[in-house]
């Protein structure tokens, strides 16, 4: 009959309370946002009275997670960049040439000949030694370091008459693509972090694309300028090391701060020995004594320059400079002729890993092509928010009135459930850190319209059951029970649509799918369980002999 177990009652009420609690910060969006920004700023730069005051705008014990506003509401820039991954193959072959030359030189003189991009072709003088030459070249191959590519080598060497051809293997190409993408993401993230905007989104999309969304930036062109700049990674000779930030560096030198420890400054020669553009790879490794180190490799020109310089300057420090900060200033311990070397220092394993990442992240590994860009001005975003607020309020009031006029007290119950529903949508959106977009607002308005559907189904059913006169309690109970299958079927089909939209959609459309999907779940909960609880509470107190729905 018309009963709900105590534990179910408590659970329903607690769920509603949790939803309301999580939604609370969104009602005070401005102050909470300032509070969150202030906390973040204090983490980075320490507390100031100003920041303390901002942080105090919202008490710490309350939840502080907000619904993110999408670019179409906040304004900002959106870029979709395609990474030209194939460029890296050519670079790799370029770097392989000296190695190949060195191993073949002892067998027969070789000459490099023209080849399509991504392939290395050499002509050997003595065609009779082809087999021997091939074997020697194959010794350069290294196993591919991925799970899928296990057991395969990174290069494929083939030969015909007097020509030896070297290309990357398919497994190595895949692994290289993966690395290229990781590096591109990393460097883009670092670059955008430097601009210091709030919550940028940098995501990989598909196999070779990167989505970059930066709220609050003036235009996509500005964003392109940041991402498109070449990385400022250089290897410079160190003149002096000190703690005076006003020291005069002298002609041809520059004064740069240390990246790790504050108050440490280096005077370096401004002209670099080599730059990050000449770096092919960097990996964390260990030196002869088992201490963490970073191994790196230069391309041909870089290798030559670096080899000459290190041979002449053993025992002297040189600086690795990234974005005008000295990230490390190791001492040259031996000449490094082959273009690959090892950086030792006071590294922990973590530090060496980081340094390797930094070195790789120094330059974008491949060029970017921008295939989509959108800029939304903050004025338009604010206009959309304002219009959305008015429309939502009007829609809300109209629906509330309509329900009350149609179903009286029961309509009033449904209205309370509807209010709880919208709060829960915001609560859940905040909890999962979802992004609210303009179509997302439309999704909420649509949910408001459709959320009452479940209640309409139930109330219409109760009306019908009342006609067969089994008493009000029985009619209410049957109404809820018998409407359930229609409610479930109707909402599951809509939910399927929301999932498809989420999987296939992007940007604002995805925001719409999220609000639609969450709205379906919360509306079934509030329209079915919450109204039922209210009806039961009311029924237990009033004990009406007859009811009108």
């Amino acid at each position, binding site marked *: 009959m018309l009963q709900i177990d105590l534990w179910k009652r408590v659970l329903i009420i607690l769920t509603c309370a949790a939803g309301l609690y999580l939604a609370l910060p969104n009602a005070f969006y401005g102050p909470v946002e300032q509070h969150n920004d202030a906390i973040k700023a204090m983490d980075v730069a320490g507390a100031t009275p100003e920041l303390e005051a901002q942080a105090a705008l919202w008490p710490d014990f309350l939840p502080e997670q907000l619904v993110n506003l999408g670019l179409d509401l906040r304004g900002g820039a959106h870029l979709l960049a395609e990474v030209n991954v194939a460029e890296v193959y050519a670079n790799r072959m370029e770097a392989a040439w000296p190695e190949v030359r060195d191993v073949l030189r002892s067998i027969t003189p070789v000459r490099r000949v023209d080849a399509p991009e991504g392939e290395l072709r050499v002509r050997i003088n003595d065609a009779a030694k082809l087999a021997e030459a091939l074997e020697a070249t194959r010794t350069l191959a290294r196993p591919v370091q991925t799970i899928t590519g296990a057991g395969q080598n990174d290069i494929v060497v083939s030969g015909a008459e007097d020509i030896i051809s070297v290309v990357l293997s398919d497994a190595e190409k895949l692994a290289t693509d993966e690395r290229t993408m990781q590096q591109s993401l990393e460097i883009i993230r670092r670059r955008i972090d430097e601009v210091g905007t709030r919550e940028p989104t940098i995501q990989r999309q598909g196999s070779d694309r990167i989505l970059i969304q930066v709220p609050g930036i003036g235009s996509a062109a500005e964003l392109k300028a940041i991402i498109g700049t070449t990385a400022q990674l250089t290897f410079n000779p160190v003149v002096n090391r000190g703690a005076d930030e006003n020291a005069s560096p002298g002609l041809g030198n520059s004064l740069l701060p240390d990246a790790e420890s504050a108050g440490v400054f280096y005077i370096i020669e401004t002209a670099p020995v080599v730059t990050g553009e000449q770096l092919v790879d960097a990996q964390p490794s260990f030196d002869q004594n088992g201490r963490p180190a970073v191994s790196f490799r230069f391309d041909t020109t870089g290798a030559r320059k670096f080899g000459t310089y290190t041979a002449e300057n053993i025992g002297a420090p040189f600086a690795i400079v990234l974005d005008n900060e000295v990230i490390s200033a190791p001492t040259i311990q031996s000449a490094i002729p082959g273009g690959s070397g090892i950086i030792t220092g006071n590294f922990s394993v973590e530090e060496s890993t980081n340094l390797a990442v930094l070195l790789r992240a120094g330059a974008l590994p491949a060029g970017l092509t921008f295939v989509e*860009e959108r800029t939304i001005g903050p*004025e*338009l975003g604010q206009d959309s928010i304002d219009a959305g607020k008015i429309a939502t309020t*009007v829609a809300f009031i109209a629906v509330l009135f309509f329900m009350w*006029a149609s179903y009286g007290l029961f309509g009033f119950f449904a209205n309370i459930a509807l209010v709880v529903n919208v709060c829960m949508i915001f609560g859940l959106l905040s909890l999962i850190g979802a992004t609210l977009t303009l179509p997302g607002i439309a999704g909420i308005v649509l949910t408001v319209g459709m959320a*009452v*559907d479940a209640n309409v189904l139930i109330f219409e059913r109760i009306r019908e059951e009342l006609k067969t006169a089994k008493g009000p309690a029985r009619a209410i109970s049957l109404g809820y029970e018998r409407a359930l299958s229609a409610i479930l079927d109707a909402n599951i089909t809509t939910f399927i649509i929301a999932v498809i939209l989420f999987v296939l959609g992007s940007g604002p*459309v995805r925001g719409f799918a999220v609000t639609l999907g969450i709205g379906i779940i919360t509306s079934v909960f509030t329209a079915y369980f919450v109204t039922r609880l209210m009806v039961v509470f009311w029924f237990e107190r009033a004990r009406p002999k007859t009811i009108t729905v």
Partner: protein
Amino acid sequence: MKRLRLIPDETNFDFFKHAKFTFGASCVAVVLALAVWFTMGLNYGIDFRGGTTLRTQSETAVDVAAYRAAMEPLGLGDISISEVFDPTSDDSKHVAMVRIQAQEGEEAATPEMIAAVEGALKTVAPNIIFTSVESVGPKVSGELIQTAFLAVGASLAAILIYIWLRFEWQFSVGAVAALFHDVILTIGIFSALQIRFDLPVIAAILTIIGYSINDTVVIFDRLRENLRKYKKRPLRDVMNISVNETLSRTLMTSGTTLLALIALLVLGGDVIRGFVFAITWGVVVGTYSSVYVAKNVVLFLGVKRDWTKKDNNTGQYANIDA
């Protein structure tokens, strides 16, 4: 207390009385919509055909001819300029959309091109601001249109399967026929009125599918229940009973949804107007199709009536255990 009623409590409409006319009208409408679609085509936004749009806002009235003349010397190919009217905006805001075709050999617009366009328009309207600039390369737009069709197709397939599992196959054919009707009519109206057809409109079409199926399922659910209740009555009568019983709910739900949508359509700003228009249109068409299309198809296909007896066509070996 007097309650608001959209229709009397007890209704007894014969929804099949004009079945030939209503179903015929639906068929004609679908054919018409297809004809319009194929002859006039859709006014694709940059999402689907690539190119660049700039949204401009100025205090002086938009002079389309002057804008066009200013941009002519840049040689950017096909340019379309349209003024945007919004009932909620005041006189100080004159908004226009400028669309430039995708440039040869470029993916997204170059900063130089955008700067040139902005400079040219500033000579006409000095206080003009650019509230949004969007550019989609031909490569991405091609993929987007593919994904859009895939999404609509996947939704229809998923619903076909779900309804088939939950009901009978006749129901799922009826439901999907009604959805096709809704989707085609929506595309038709966008084509006839040449409203910009972009990514959010696809989302709207999927929402329409979701809404329309919602409506259809509620009627089917009642039909299934009544088929068990009235075993002897003809299918046509049971269907009429089911639709009449759920009519009040159908109108109430469409009513509340439309109330909310109309508020959004009028007050929600022009950025999402196309999107909201599509959903509003879909709610109207979807409600109609649940009552008049889905049901007619099910009636035409017939339904297995008696679940206690074996199906006639299961054959003589049906109950022999293998």
